[in-house]
């Protein structure tokens, strides 16, 4: 993969500016605080892409809350051999039974990972479980899952930044941008 030293040069268009994201995260935090008023919340973030969103969102929620982190393996099989099954690479560090859980995701596109995670987490008997996603890319959806809190609905483009990567790069961009095809085409 080729990328320039100045990562922003690989971005064709800034889709969501830093200011826009900050305002939206504050708005989401306010809504979540109101909806869960009087309750204790557990935010579960899915590594690695959700990390910046989680860090910003939790500071916009005015509730007593716990945070936890999960990581699941991503598909990477080949056409000629079985690639196995999705695995939990990092599980929750504390039980969630009887707790209100909000799963914090960076982006929902196919919904395959989210579908798997929700099934897994429901098996741990939380009091409730909802989903908060910064970005929703409905054009790619395979599994229709209601998303309770959505930051932005985005067009069908390959986006990076604010946690989102391509080949583990671009996560540290402060905005969300559309990656130039030259950056991922050999």
């Amino acid at each position, binding site marked *: 993969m080729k990328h320039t030293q100045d990562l922003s040069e690989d971005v064709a268009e800034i889709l969501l500016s830093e200011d826009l994201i900050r305002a939206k995260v504050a708005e989401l935090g306010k809504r979540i605080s109101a909806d869960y008023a009087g309750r204790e919340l557990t935010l579960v973030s899915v590594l690695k892409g959700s990390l910046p969103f989680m860090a910003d969102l939790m500071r916009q929620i005015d509730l007593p809350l716990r945070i936890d982190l999960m990581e699941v393996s991503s598909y990477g*099989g080949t*056409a*000629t051999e079985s690639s196995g099954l999705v695995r939990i690479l990092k599980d929750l560090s504390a039980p969630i039974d009887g707790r209100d859980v909000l799963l914090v995701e960076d982006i929902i596109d*196919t919904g*395959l990972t989210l579908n798997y995670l929700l099934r897994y987490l429901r098996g741990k008997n939380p009091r409730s479980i909802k989903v908060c996603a910064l970005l929703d890319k409905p054009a790619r959806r*395979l599994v229709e899952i209601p998303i309770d809190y959505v930051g932005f609905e985005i067009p069908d483009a390959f986006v990076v930044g604010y946690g989102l990567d391509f080949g583990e790069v671009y996560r540290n961009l402060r905005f969300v941008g559309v990656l130039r095809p030259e950056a991922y085409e050999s």
Partner: protein
Amino acid sequence: MNEAGTPRDPVAGNTFAHASEAEFAHILDFYQVAWEYEPQVFPILWDLDGNVLESFAPDFFLPDLELFIELTTLQQRLVRKKNRKVRRLRELYPNIRIKLFYARDFRALMLKYGRSALVSELSGTLGQVGPRQSSESGPEESAAAGRSLVGRPLDLSTAPVGATVDARASHDRRSRGARRRAVRRAAAAYAPNSTAT
């Protein structure tokens, strides 16, 4: 996944028409989404005698999600044909949920999973793994296809409301009213919530 809930190798266990379909099956298996490959054939064109002239078998059915998926990574000419078939399917069977996965969608999926290098070998004619053993048929094929259809029971002697009939067919043996009533019964049996009248 097989019926016992254990994973299977989709390539070994099924004969796919295209390498992209095998890759897609791998992805579904990986995320533990149950799937069936071409489990059902839908008639989409009949002649005036009710014989099936054309049918369509979507590539995948995801039973837990009640969703059919048709993959197409081939050239534009075939995409247009697929678009027409999917449009027709939606008209005739409004309760069926189907998603057409285009080459660009497949490419994006491969990119997402860091497998963009495989796109060219899994797409288009390069990705074809052998002669198509398709259960789909076109107008050029005989109406005998209608007698070997699989899937949910459907009265194949009549077309659902709105079905296109071949104007070249010789005649309809029944009265128009009787035919319409039979068509409504068949359509209602298949799509109970259909608003078609």
